[in-house]
C-alpha cells in the first residue's frame, strides 16, 4: 500500500523540457517510476528520452493515463500549471517549483478546493515510496523499503533523517516533503490521517521547523486521532526571532511558531521529540518494539 504514490502512479512531468524537469524526469524513470508523459506547451509531438511530450496535461491524462503530475516549470507559470493539472483530472499534484508568490498560492488553494486533486508543495522535494515510485527530487539511493512513514516541511533535513534510518537498517513506507512555504497544499495533519490508515506503516517520523502552527495542530491531531507511534524532530532552536531563515515559512511570528513552543506541544501530546537528528533512529527503534 504505502501512501500517495506507488506502482499504480503514472506521472506526467510539467516543464519536462526545462533543465530541472529534464534531469529529474530521467532520474524518476531510472528509479522505476512510471513516467508516462511530459508537457511543454508548443513542444507537443516531440519526445524526451522516450517520454512523449504533449502541449496539455489533459492530453497526457487522456492518452497516457497519467494520474499524477510533478511540476518543474518556472515560478511565474507554476500556479497555472497546478490549476491545469487539477482541471485535467490528476489526483495528485507535486509542485517542486519554488518562489511562487503567497497570494498566488492563496488563489490556487481556492481553485483546488472545488475539485478532488491533492497538492503537495510548492517548494518541496516531493514524495518517494521506496522501491515503487519517486515523484520529485529526493535522492533515490538513500531510501530503503520498510514500514516507517516520514513527513517533513524541510527538504535536505528529510534526506538526513531518512538516510540515517536507512543506515540503521530501518526502511520507510513513504517519505514526503511538504514544502516550506507559508501556503502549502498538504499539511502534517493530512498525511498523519493517511499514514494512520495505511496498513504498511507502523511508525511515523514528523520533522518540523519554526514558523506557523502546523506542528502544534499535528500534536493536537495525533493525541485525538492517531493510534500509531509518532516521533518528532524540530529544527530551529537557535534561530533568532523575526529573522527570515531561507524559507518564507520559517519566520517566527508573534507569540507562536518558535521551536520551543512546538516541542512543548508535541511532548504534551506524548510524542517523543529527538534532541538531534541522529537520535531519531533510537526513538523509532523504541517505538517499533
Amino acid at each position, binding site marked *: 500500500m504505502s501512501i500517495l504514490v506507488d506502482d499504480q502512479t503514472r506521472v506526467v512531468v510539467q516543464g519536462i523540457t526545462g533543465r530541472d524537469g529534464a534531469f529529474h524526469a530521467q532520474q524518476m524513470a531510472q528509479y522505476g517510476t512510471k513516467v508516462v508523459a511530459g508537457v511543454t506547451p508548443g513542444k507537443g509531438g516531440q519526445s524526451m528520452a522516450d517520454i512523449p511530450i504533449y502541449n496539455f496535461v489533459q492530453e497526457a491524462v487522456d492518452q497516457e493515463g497519467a494520474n499524477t503530475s510533478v511540476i518543474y516549470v518556472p515560478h511565474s507559470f507554476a500556479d497555472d500549471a497546478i490549476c491545469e493539472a487539477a482541471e485535467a483530472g490528476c489526483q495528485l499534484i507535486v509542485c517542486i517549483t519554488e518562489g511562487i508568490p503567497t497570494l498566488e498560492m*492563496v488563489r490556487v488553494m481556492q481553485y483546488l478546493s472545488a475539485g478532488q486533486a491533492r497538492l503537495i508543495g510548492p517548494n518541496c522535494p516531493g514524495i518517494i515510496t521506496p522501491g515503487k515510485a519517486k515523484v520529485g527530487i529526493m535522492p533515490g539511493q538513500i531510501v530503503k523499503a520498510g514500514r516507517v512513514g516520514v513527513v517533513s516541511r524541510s527538504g*535536505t533535513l528529510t534526506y538526513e533523517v531518512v538516510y540515517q534510518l536507512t543506515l540503521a537498517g530501518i526502511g520507510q513506507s513513504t517519505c514526503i516533503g511538504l514544502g516550506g512555504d507559508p501556503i502549502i497544499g498538504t499539511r502534517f495533519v493530512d498525511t498523519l490521517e493517511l499514514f494512520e490508515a495505511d496498513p504498511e506503516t507502523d511508525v511515523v517520523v514528523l520533522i518540523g521547523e519554526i514558523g506557523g502552527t502546523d506542528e502544534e495542530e499535528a500534536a493536537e491531531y495525533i493525541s485525538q486521532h492517531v493510534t500509531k507511534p509518532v516521533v518528532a524532530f524540530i529544527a530551529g532552536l537557535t534561530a533568532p526571532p523575526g529573522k527570515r531563515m531561507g524559507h518564507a515559512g520559517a519566520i517566527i511570528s508573534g507569540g507562536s511558531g518558535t521551536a520551543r513552543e512546538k516541542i512543548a506541544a508535541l511532548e504534551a501530546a506524548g510524542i517523543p521529540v529527538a534532541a538531534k537528528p541522529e537520535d531519531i533512529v533510537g526513538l523509532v527503534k523504541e517505538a517499533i518494539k
Partner: protein
Amino acid sequence: MKVHEYQAKDIFAKYGIPVPQGRVAQSPGVARELAAGIGCPVMVKAQVHVGGRGKAGGIKMAKTLGEAEKLAGKILGMRIKGLQVRKVLIYRALEIKSEAYMGIVVDRHSQVPMVMVSAAGGVDIEEVARETPEKIHRLAVDPLFGLLPFQARELTFSIYEDPGIAAQAAKILMQLYRAFWECDASLMEINPLIVSDQNKLWALDAKFNVDDNALYRQPKIAEMRDLQAEIPEELMARGKGLSYVKLDGTVGCVVNGAGLAMGTMDLIKQRGGEPANFLDIGGSSSPEKVTAAMHILLRDTNVKVILFNIFGGITRCDDVANGLVTALGEMGKVDLPIVIRLTGTASREGREILKKANLLAVDSMAEVVEKAVQMAKV
C-alpha cells in the same frame, strides 16, 4: 522585504488612506526646513526596519523649528536594535482622541488573508493579542471576493461607537485590503489609527512587508528597497541567490536547505559551539554560489572555522566541490580550517574533486559538526 514607514505611507496615500502630510530628511537642516513648510508642532520619527522605535527614543514631538532641528540631529545617527538611523520622517503632529489598530496578514491556518481590528491600538498590540485576545476582532477574508463592504463595516462598527467614524474606518479598511492584495503584501498594519480632535481618522504609523517571492511582479515596490538600511553581507548574499543571516558565533556554516541549515546550527549549539550564521545555498547550486558563500563568510572576523554540510538532492555534490575549489583558488590563501560533509547526489564525484585539491570530506553530519566545534575552540 520591509519598506520604511514613509514609503508605506506613500502607498497608503495612493489608495486614499488618510496619512498626515510629511517628508523625509537625512540631515537636521533639512528636517528644520521641512518642519517650517509643514508648520509646528511636528513629529520627528526614525525610519529603521525595527519595532520599538518610540521606546528607544526614536520618535519625538518638536514644538519649534529649533527643537525639530535638534531632535533630528539627535535621532539621525542613533542606533536602534543595531540599525543606524539615516532618515527621519517629519510630519505635522495631530491631537489624538483615540488610537485603534488595523492589520492584515496571510493566515497560514485558513490559507486566506486575515483582517484584524482592535480598539486597543497604539500600545503593544502583541501584548493585547496575548493578554486579551477578545479585544481583537478577526475576519478570514474569502480571497475570491475580497473584503466586502458590509464585512468591513461589521468590523469597524465593533470598535467605534460613532457611526460616522465607523463608516470612515470601513472605507480605510477596504482600501487597506485592496492595497494588501494588489501590492502582494505579507503584512500591512496601521497602528495607531487615530481619531483626531476633528473626528477625522488618520493612519499615524504604517507598516508594510512585501512577499519576497512577488517582487518580480511588483517592480515599483522592489525599487523601494533601502540598501543602506540592510546588513551588507545579507545584501551580497541575496544578490547571489543565497539566504544568509548573520549571528554572533564562531562556526561559519554553508548548508543546502533551510531546514538542514537550522538543524546544523542547533547541533553546533548542542555540541557546545556557536553558529556564526545561517546560510542556505539553496537547490540547483552553481559553483558561483559556493564562491559567493565563501566570500561572505570570510568577511566575518568572528568566524574560526568553516563548515560545509551538503546533502545532495537537486543540489549536486560535484557542483559544490567545484565551487569550493574554485573559490579557494581565487582567494589565494585562506587561513581558516574548512570541514566538509558531502552526501547524496554525485557525492562520489564531489569527493574526487576535493581529494585532488587536498580537501577531505566526511560522510556524517554529527562527525562534521563535532570536528567544527572542536576546531572553533582552539
